[in-house]
C-alpha cells in the first residue's frame, strides 16, 4: 500500500438483499489509487465494477469497509468526485451551456466567472457551436462531450466514468478516448474508468484491475507499461490483449454458467 493514496478502497464489500437470496456484489476489495493515475476496472457484466464505482461516487455506501478520498471517508455524492454516466444523464431541459454551468451555479460562483469557465470548456471539447442546443439535438458522442465538460467544470480532482463510451460507434469512441487522454494529460486528474472492453482498457489505462464475476473480487491488478500514444496494432498491445482476454473470458464463462443454472432453477 502506498503511503498517501488519492483514493483508498479499504476492505469494501457490498451485499444486495433480494427477496430470494443475498447477492455478494463485492467482496473485500482492497485498492490504493495514487493521485493522477488512470485506472480501468475491467470485467464482464455482473462483476460489480459499476457497484464499486457507485460506492466510490457515494451513491451506494459499502456494506462493510470504507472508501477514503483525499483522507476523508466517502459518505455521500459530491462534486469532488465527478461522474460521467453511460447514459449521459444530461438535463434535457437545459441547453448545452446551462448543463455545463449548473454545477458552478450550485457552487455559487460569480456569473462572469461561470461564463468564462463554460466558454473555455466548450472550446476545449469543441462544443462551442452547439452551446445553445438542447441535448436531444446532439449525437451520442456530442452528448458525452457535454457530460465530460459538465464534470470538468467542477474541477474535481477525481473523475469517475461508468462505461462512458459504451453506447458510441467505434470511430466516435476512439475519437473521445483520444480526447479524454489529452484532457487527462493536461489536467492531471485521477480517473477511474469502468469498461468491459479489453482494448479500451489497454488503450487508456495506467493500470487495469480485472474483476471476478460474483462475488466481485480483484482477479488481477496490473500496470500497463506500454508507451503512449498506444497503437492497438502493436505486438506488445496484442500480447496484453490476449492475456487479459483469457482472464476476462474465464469470468464471462462463470457468468454464463450462472445464468444457465438460474434458468434451470426457474
Amino acid at each position, binding site marked *: 500500500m502506498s503511503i498517501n493514496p488519492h483514493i483508498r478502497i479499504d476492505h469494501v464489500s457490498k451485499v444486495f438483499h433480494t427477496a430470494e437470496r443475498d447477492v455478494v456484489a463485492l467482496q473485500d476489495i482492497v485498492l490504493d489509487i495514487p493521485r493522477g493515475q488512470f485506472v480501468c476496472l475491467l470485467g464482464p457484466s455482473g462483476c460489480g465494477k459499476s457497484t464499486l464505482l457507485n460506492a466510490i*461516487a457515494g*451513491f451506494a455506501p459499502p456494506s462493510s469497509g470504507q472508501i477514503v478520498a483525499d483522507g476523508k471517508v466517502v459518505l*455521500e*455524492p*459530491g*462534486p469532488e*468526485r*465527478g*461522474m460521467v*454516466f453511460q*447514459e449521459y*444523464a*444530461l*438535463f*434535457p*431541459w*437545459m441547453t448545452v451551456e446551462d448543463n455545463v454551468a*449548473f*454545477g458552478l451555479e*450550485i*457552487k455559487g460562483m460569480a456569473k462572469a466567472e461561470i461564463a468564462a469557465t463554460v466558454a473555455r470548456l466548450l472550446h476545449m471539447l469543441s462544443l462551442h457551436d452547439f452551446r445553445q442546443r*438542447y*441535448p*436531444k439535438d446532439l449525437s451520442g458522442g456530442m452528448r458525452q462531450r457535454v457530460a465530460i465538460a*459538465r464534470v470538468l467544470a*467542477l474541477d474535481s480532482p477525481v473523475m469517475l466514468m461508468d462505461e462512458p463510451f459504451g453506447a458510441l460507434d467505434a470511430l466516435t469512441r476512439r475519437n473521445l478516448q483520444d480526447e479524454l487522454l489529452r484532457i487527462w494529460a493536461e489536467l492531471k486528474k485521477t480517473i477511474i474508468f469502468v469498461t468491459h472492453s479489453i482494448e479500451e482498457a489497454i488503450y487508456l489505462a495506467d493500470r487495469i484491475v480485472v474483476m471476478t464475476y460474483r462475488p466481485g473480487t480483484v482477479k488481477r491488478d496490473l500496470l500497463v507499461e506500454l508507451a503512449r500514444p498506444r497503437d492497438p496494432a502493436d505486438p506488445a498491445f496484442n500480447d496484453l490483449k490476449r492475456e487479459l482476454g483469457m482472464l476476462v473470458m474465464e469470468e464471462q464463462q462463470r457468468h454464463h454458467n450462472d445464468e444457465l443454472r438460474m434458468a434451470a432453477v426457474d
Partner: protein
Amino acid sequence: MAKSRSTWKEAAVGMVVPAVAIAIWQMVAMNGWVNPQVLPAPLAVVEKWIAYLLPLQPYDAGQGGWLAWAVSGELIHDALGSMYRVGVGFAIGAGLALPLGLLMGASPRVYAWMNPLVQLLRPIPPIAYIPLSILWFGLGNPPAVFLISLGAFFPVLMNTIAGVRQVDGIYIRAARNLGASGTTLFLRVMLPAAVPYILSGVRIGIGTAFIVVIVSEMIAVNNGLGFRILEAREYFWSDKIIAGMITIGLLGLAIDVAMNRLNNYLLRWHRGLEH
C-alpha cells in the same frame, strides 16, 4: 413552393367532406323534409350567428367609443363571460392543485396523508357537485367558478403527483453528484423533469373546465354560451342553438391551439415533439 401547394391541396381535400355534409343539410332543409324548428337550414344558422355576433343597437357616437360598440353584441358578451369563468375557475383549481401535487409527489409522508382523501374525492364528477355548490354559493358566478375549479383541480393534481414521482433517478443522481440538494434539486431538476406530465394535466384540466362551464351556465348563471343555448331552446330557436354550439366549438378549438403552442414552447427541449 411545392410545400405550400401541397398544404393547399391538403386543405382543399379536407374541405370536401364538410362541404358535402353542409350541402346535404341545405338540401334537406330546402326541400322541407324536416321541420325547420328541428333542423334549420345552414344558411339560417349562419344568418343567426352573424346577427348574434353583431351589436344589438345601431352605432351611437354619444354612447362610448367605437370599439365598445363593436363588441357589444350578445355573442361576444356571452363568450367573454364563459371565458372569464373558465379563466378564474382554472386559475383557482390549478393554482391549488400544483403546489399540493408537488408536495405530494416529493414527500412520501404528505402523500400517505393526503392520497386516501384524494382517491375518495377524485371519482366524483364535478357535475355531481352542482346541488351542493348552489346550496353553498347561491346562483351566479361563484358556484360556476367553484365547479370549474373542481374540474381543473384533479387532472392537474394527479398529473403533477405522477410527474414528480416518476422523475428519472439518473437526473437526481447526476444532480447530487454535481452538488445539488434540497430546494435547488427540487426547483431545477425535479420540477422541470415533471413539466411534461404537469402540462398534460393542465391540458386535461382546461378541457374539463370548458365542459363544466357550459353545464354550470345552464344551471346557475344568466349569461354565457351555455345559458344562451338553453334559453334558445325555450323559444324553439334551433338556429340560435346551433349558432351557439358552433361558437362553443370555435372557442374550444382556439383553447386547444393555444395550449398546443404553449406546450411546444415550454417543451422545446423534449424529444419526440413535432415542430
